[in-house]
């Protein structure tokens, strides 16, 4: 009896507040836009029984999805979100790998402190971390002051409100997600393998490419997905650091909902976004599974 209760409470909580809301999004994405509150039709009227259900089904259509394909804005936004996510994941890997490598090679007594220093920003407000770059990157910001002061440039650079600023923001905020899984694989690595490679005539660099990188592959993959997946739907970074030409689907959805008040189109945007995310999520899960199996052996 108690067991049933322990299962039922979290189960029904998630059904009611996760699954049902998602089904509502799906339903509204198939409904027509109306100038009313709430601004959509149809609603499922259960009191009319079977006839009501049939009327509900008859009113559903793919109009909003066809609308998404006719307006350039949407598919451009999906493509540019994907592109921004790919580029910034790669940049995060380039920045994160040396840090993870340095941590794994640091003195054992130092490692907990270094780990703590990587995790600490993760606990700090995301919004504040993104905001901290606005003062640095703006036209009269600290970076431009520094560069002009040093005589590197004569005119201040425009970085804030461009895609460059978005890349910087993503690399900065998601860096811990990249460092931690790579560090975990590098830390477990047996250093004698590198000695063996060098004894067998590898140079340091080729030992790195032939031994270290393949052994840290699962960490690299996990880190890349952990950055890539949340970046696609990102809203805060493009809206604070990006400019008007920065198209990201999270921002489009937000504006569709809050500014245009077009709920059905916003819901259709959400459904497609989720479909795009399914593939990387499945790949990520598979990578995790394989790693668990490898560790189990």
């Amino acid at each position, binding site marked *: 009896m108690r067991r049933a209760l*322990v299962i039922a409470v979290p189960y029904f909580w998630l059904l009611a507040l996760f699954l*049902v809301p998602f089904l509502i999004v799906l339903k509204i994405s198939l409904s027509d836009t109306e100038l009313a509150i709430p601004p959509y039709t149809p609603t499922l009227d259960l009191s009319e029984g079977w006839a009501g259900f049939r009327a509900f089904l008859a009113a559903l259509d793919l109009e909003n999805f066809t609308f998404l394909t006719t307006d350039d804005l949407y598919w451009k936004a999906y493509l540019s979100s994907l592109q921004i996510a790919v580029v910034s994941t790669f940049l995060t890997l380039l920045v994160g790998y*040396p*840090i993870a490598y340095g941590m794994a090679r*640091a003195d054992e007594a130092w490692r907990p402190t270094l780990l703590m220093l990587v995790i600490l920003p993760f*606990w700090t*407000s995301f*919004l504040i971390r993104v905001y901290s770059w606005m*003062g640095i990157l703006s036209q009269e910001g600290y970076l431009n002051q520094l560069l002009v002061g040093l005589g590197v440039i004569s005119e201040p650079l425009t970085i804030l409100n461009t895609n460059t600023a978005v890349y910087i923001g993503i690399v900065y905020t998601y860096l811990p997600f990249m460092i931690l899984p790579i560090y975990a694989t590098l830390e477990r690595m047996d250093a004698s393998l590198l000695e063996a490679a060098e004894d067998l005539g590898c140079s340091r660099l080729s030992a790195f490419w032939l031994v270290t990188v393949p052994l840290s592959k699962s960490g690299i993959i996990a880190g890349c997905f952990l950055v890539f997946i949340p970046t696609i739907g990102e809203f805060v970074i493009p809206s*604070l650091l990006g400019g008007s030409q920065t198209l990201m689907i999270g921002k489009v959805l937000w504006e569709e909902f809050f500014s245009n008040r077009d709920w059905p189109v916003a819901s259709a945007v959400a459904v497609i976004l989720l479909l795009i995310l399914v593939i990387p999520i499945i790949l990520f899960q598979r990578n995790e599974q394989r790693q668990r199996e490898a560790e189990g052996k």
Partner: protein
Amino acid sequence: MRRFSWFNATALTLGFAFLYLPMLILIIYSFNGGRLVTVWSGFSTKWYGELFRNEAFLDAAWVTLKVAVFSSTIATVLGTMAAYVLIRGGRFLGRTLFSGMIYAPLVMPEVITGLSLLLLFIGIGLDRGILTIVLAHTTFSMCYVSVVVSSRLVTFDRSLEEAALDLGCTPFDAFRLVTLPIIAPAVISGWLLAFTLSLDDLVIASFTSGPSATTLPIKIFSAVRLGVSPEINALSTLLIAIVAVGVITASLVSKRAIIRRQRDEQAAIKAVA
């Protein structure tokens, strides 16, 4: 063990400078006296004073704190139950769906979670306010709690629970007297995680809050959209300080608890021998 090379030292120095400099600059400039945020014009704490006189910020802070306390506490209870069900619950109808619903919110884009919850609240005619934000935050943070707690439950020696049951405990007592004290550190870090997630959240709160309840992140976001502001610098500094103190204290306390437990265990082994 290879020797620590110059390359590693450089990577670490640059890496940590990158991670910490932006926040450091923010903190330094929060003590800047002038209205122009990027030009240093002398040390002053006047923006902190302005902040504490700003009713709107204080109200938002109070709402945020209430939401965080309630949602993280409910999420910890639900998340611990969910973790226990996943790891110890055995088979039951719809187990796959259940574990799917635990993991899906972790990868769901916030804009979708926010949108879907808002549509639900409107659908059932629930007025948006503190209650709806608490419901929304509880839902996503209970999943994080459950991941943290279940990773602890997996590594935990099941025979301890079985011993308690053999010695006449009811399953509930075995959980209360044996399991809970052992997984307590994970439950506490789950609560902390849920608490900070709730404090930070902008997107889901924006969708699920009404005009009657504005949280601090919503307030900060609408203020910084137009540009850098000295008051927000002061507010950010305070939030960074609170988090840093909290995280460092929590990790020191848990380190001490681990050391004490190890000492107790060794003492017990000696006593038996």
